[in-house]
């Protein structure tokens, strides 16, 4: 039999070996005792018997393994276990509701931003993917460098589509588009203005595979004066009627028959044509001219055709078709070699349909596209905001570790494994992220209309899609895991002995990683603030830059052709009211998206066959009052004047043109020339058109400030047409509009009255920048907000930790301000470091962004400093709220206890 001493020895020894779990400890002791007794009955000494038995258990390691397996085998109901984790988690979150609130607030805002941005990005990526043959559709783009003019555009010769479709095996079908602006559409009496009108070929349906609801896709658009309309248009003009076969009147003069109704194009398409007019009816579309580019051309390649191979045949096409015609027009000793030697270029390439929305910004886009760089930028920013929110979580969890260290210690002593604790902490963070994601959905739901307005999209949360819920659950798990993994590792690693003795590194001093994370948060925030300020500054610069004309107080009346013969009387009548300073009638306006016309001219007397002599120049046809109305400045010479009958052959050129023409001698009075019109739209080599320079106008920006001012000339239009622009004096714009509208209704009954202000249109040239500025602004406010939430909580925590220290300092005579300083100093330092890191990053970012502007603002040191100081002040204010509270508290209270 074993003595009590033996039994005590075994109990102690097993305890020492780590067998401590209740219910197992006793059992193993009894087991070993029994076994030892048996061996001792066989004649062994106690200690030999004991060690022999221990060996059969596999010594300490084996004993512990057995203990672990017993615990594991008892935990057969994971539901109970999880329930326990949840209960503890909820209690913990509720107990520290202040920190929970900060975490949930930050995370849900961050997640909401991420969510909205993801919706946006998914939408951007989905553009044009819905077409049946999306991967086989390409469009032809052209790069033409000629006569000092360099253009990247989508315009191709009219004959190109047909040639490619018939002579190249790779091409299954080709379709052309020709834009001729908006149209006035009516059924009987009242006109409605339609913007999405395009001329196109009948293969439109074949290439894009757009479903035709009524009519025959094969034969629709085959005849002149036939059109196809979208379902939306059919409902608009023929509600509850069959629109097929009906007639509409375009621009008061074209009777067209509806030959097909097609499904309205989805919003995520790079064009939204509502009315297709058969190109068959357009003379221009039949001209076999290769040097005039006016048609956007889309190709449907055959299955398995190689687009690269097709592209490689284009240079030969240029040599064979374009060059001979060019040689004929330009005359002289034109050769391809000379053309290229003069630095010229004519190159056609293919662009896949999928690249259009995100990677294309060429002349002749149907609608402004988006830039993939901004997609990446938005994604990055959204991700950073989420990380900032996650960092709050990590920092608060580890900072509060002191409070939880005891919990960890006790749990470990009670037999918790590290894995149990990690599970507990992870479940807490996942629970938190679930709560946050629900709030995030709510925030996103509220935010989305605002975002839609900013971005010009129509995004909706796809509540009916099951994938949404899967993603939400995955995201909650992912974010919870991401935010919780570091605290889980950190906290569960505490050694129970040292924790329970009170040796845990506390507060701010311990957290190098925590400091690094705070620095990261503020680096991102400050970067965003600097970025926002830079974008805003550039926008201001654009708005206030001297443009060379006066964009304010100009009212432009569109579609003046609807007045018919009443055009001039209308203009005169309104001028007679005395409310207007000047009026001009022309479509050539100094904002993009208005008329443009580009021709080669040269100084009279020089040889046009020498390519250096040719200047590709904007040729604007205006009237006598144009320069006055637009507020442009004549630098030398004079404006057009009725006093000079010879002004019908006069020209005013801009400063950029002077540089390119390279005049010899006096500029005023010089003559410039180009080929006359052969009456069929082509140039006539034997008829020269000559104009005399009477004035030089100061350079004015007629395109976006991203581009340099190019050569431009103005001559008097023989027959003024286009919109009518009025410069008005009155401050009361409503009154001015009313005056014009009344007159319009009187003189053009049944025609829609549409107008815009020149400065508005100017502003819309920078819509993308404005959008970027606003979105960046929102992002940076949110980033700062979340980072400050974290800072707020951290200061609260530090103050709480140092309560006693503060009390003692106060008793010893420290002032409130010195204590506030003490508490804010460490975190303030981190914000400073963040600024030092953010400034160069922002510098790179801003330079990258400004690179594409020919005219840009100077971003000085002051902007960086302002951003840094702003961030610092915001951070300091946030902190001082808490530190002041701590510093002002009564020392008696904090020192009284214990």
């Amino acid at each position, binding site marked *: 039999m074993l003595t*009590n001493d033996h*039994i*005590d020895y075994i*109990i102690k020894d097993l305890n020492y070996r780590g067998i401590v779990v209740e*219910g*197992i400890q*006793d*059992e*193993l*002791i*009894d*087991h070993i*005792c*029994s*076994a030892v007794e*048996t061996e001792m009955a066989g004649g062994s000494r106690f200690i030999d018997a004991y060690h022999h038995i221990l060996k*059969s*258990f*596999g010594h300490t390691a*084996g004993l512990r*393994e*057995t203990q672990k*397996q*017993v615990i*594991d*085998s*008892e*935990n*057969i*109901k994971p539901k109970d276990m999880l329930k326990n984790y949840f209960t503890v988690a909820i209690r913990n979150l509720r107990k520290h509701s202040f920190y929970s609130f900060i975490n949930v607030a930050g995370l849900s805002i961050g997640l909401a931003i991420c969510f909205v941005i993801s919706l946006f990005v998914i939408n951007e990526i989905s553009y044009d993917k819905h077409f049946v043959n999306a991967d086989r559709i390409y469009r032809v783009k052209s790069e033409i460098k000629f006569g000092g003019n360099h253009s990247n555009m989508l315009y191709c010769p009219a004959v190109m589509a047909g040639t490619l479709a018939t002579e190249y095996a790779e091409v299954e079908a080709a379709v052309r588009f020709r834009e001729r602006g908006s149209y006035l559409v009516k059924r009987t009496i009242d006109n409605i203005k339609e913007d999405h009108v395009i001329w196109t070929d009948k293969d439109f349906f074949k290439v894009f595979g757009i479903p035709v609801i009524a009519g025959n896709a094969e034969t629709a658009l085959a005849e002149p004066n036939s059109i196809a309309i979208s379902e939306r248009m059919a409902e608009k003009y023929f509600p509850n009627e069959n629109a097929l076969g009906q007639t509409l009147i375009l621009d008061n003069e074209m009777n067209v028959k509806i030959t097909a109704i097609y499904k309205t194009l989805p919003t995520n398409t790079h064009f939204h044509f509502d009315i297709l007019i058969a190109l068959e009816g357009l003379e221009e579309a039949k001209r076999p001219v290769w040097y005039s580019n006016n048609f956007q051309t889309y190709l449907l390649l055959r299955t398995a055709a190689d687009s690269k191979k097709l592209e490689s045949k284009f240079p030969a096409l240029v040599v064979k078709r374009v060059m001979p015609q060019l040689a004929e027009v330009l005359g002289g000793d034109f050769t391809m070699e000379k053309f290229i030697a003069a630095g010229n270029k004519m190159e056609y390439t293919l662009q896949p349909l999928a690249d259009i929305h995100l990677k294309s910004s060429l002349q002749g886009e149907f609608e402004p596209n988006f830039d993939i760089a901004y997609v990446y930028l938005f994604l990055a920013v959204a991700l950073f905001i989420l990380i900032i929110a996650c960092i709050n979580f990590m920092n608060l969890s580890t900072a509060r570790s002191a409070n939880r260290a005891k919990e960890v210690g006790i749990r470990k002593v009670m037999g918790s494994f590290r894995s149990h604790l990690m599970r507990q902490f992870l479940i807490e963070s996942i629970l938190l992220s679930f709560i946050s994601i629900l709030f995030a959905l709510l925030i996103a739901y509220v935010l989305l209309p605002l975002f839609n307005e900013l971005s010009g999209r129509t995004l909706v949360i796809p509540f009916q899609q099951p994938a949404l819920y899967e993603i939400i659950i995955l995201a909650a798990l992912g974010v919870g895991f991401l935010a919780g993994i570091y605290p889980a590792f950190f906290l569960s690693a505490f050694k129970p002995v040292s924790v329970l003795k009170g040796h845990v590194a506390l507060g701010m001093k311990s957290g190098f990683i925590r400091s690094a994370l705070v620095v990261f948060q503020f680096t991102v925030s400050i970067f965003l603030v600097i970025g926002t300020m830079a974008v805003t500054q550039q926008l201001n610069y654009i708005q206030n830059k001297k443009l060379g004309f006066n964009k304010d107080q100009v009212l432009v009346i569109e579609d003046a052709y609807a007045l018919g013969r009443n055009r001039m009387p209308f203009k005169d009548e309104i001028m007679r009211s005395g409310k207007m300073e000047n009026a001009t009638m022309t479509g050539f306006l100094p904002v993009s998206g208005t008329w443009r016309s580009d021709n080669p001219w040269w100084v009279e007397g020089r040889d046009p066959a020498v390519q250096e002599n040719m200047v590709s120049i904007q040729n604007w046809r205006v009237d006598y009052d144009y320069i006055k109305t637009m507020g442009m400045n004549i630098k030398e010479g004079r404006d057009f004047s009725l006093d000079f009958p010879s002004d019908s052959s006069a020209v005013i050129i801009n400063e950029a043109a002077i540089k390119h023409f390279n005049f010899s001698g006096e500029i005023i009075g010089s003559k410039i020339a180009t080929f006359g019109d052969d009456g069929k739209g082509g140039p006539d080599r034997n008829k020269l058109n000559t104009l005399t320079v009477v004035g030089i106008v100061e350079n004015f920006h007629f395109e976006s400030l991203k581009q340099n001012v190019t050569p431009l000339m103005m001559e008097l239009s023989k027959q003024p047409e286009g919109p009518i622009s009025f410069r008005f004096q009155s401050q009361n714009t409503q009154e001015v509009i009313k005056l014009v509208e009344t007159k319009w209704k009187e003189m053009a009954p049944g025609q829609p009255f549409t107008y815009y202000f020149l400065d508005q249109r100017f502003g819309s040239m920078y819509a993308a920048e404005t959008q970027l500025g606003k979105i960046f602004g929102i992002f940076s406010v949110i980033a700062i907000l979340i980072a400050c939430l974290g800072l707020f909580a951290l200061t609260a925590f530090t103050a709480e930790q140092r309560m006693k220290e503060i009390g003692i300092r106060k008793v010893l005579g420290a002032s409130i301000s010195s204590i506030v300083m003490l508490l804010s100093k460490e975190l303030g330092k981190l914000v400073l470091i963040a600024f030092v890191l953010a400034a160069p990053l922002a510098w790179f970012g801003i330079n990258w962004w400004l690179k594409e502007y020919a005219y840009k603002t100077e971003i000085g040191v002051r902007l960086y400093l302002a951003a840094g100081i702003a961030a610092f002040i915001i951070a300091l204010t946030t902190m001082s709220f808490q530190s002041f509270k701590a510093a002002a508290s009564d020392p008696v209270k904090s020192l009284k206890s214990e």
Partner: protein
Amino acid sequence: MHSPELLKGTLQTILLKVLKDHGKMYGYEITQRVKELSDGHILLTEGALYPSLHKLDAEGLLKTETVMMGKRVRKYYTLTPEGKSLVKERVSEFVEFIRTMGNVLQIELN
């Protein structure tokens, strides 16, 4: 000695049957009894025995009672009614298994 791999699947059956035949038993007693019944061919390791016992306990097939023995505490296991009803099932299942194995391995079993 039989290989522990072979024993793995049968451990619960052994425990249940032994407890059915002998009523109240404690851990060490079970190992000894099994050793005896198998002529020393089956030695239950403690590392396998106790997790299994605790698992059966948690599943409600066994109940326990502890008896103080001076400084030692002895824990006895007995079958619950559910445990008892399971024994027959498990044993016949095992017999069926042996028969199948006999067919598979082409051995005559008496």
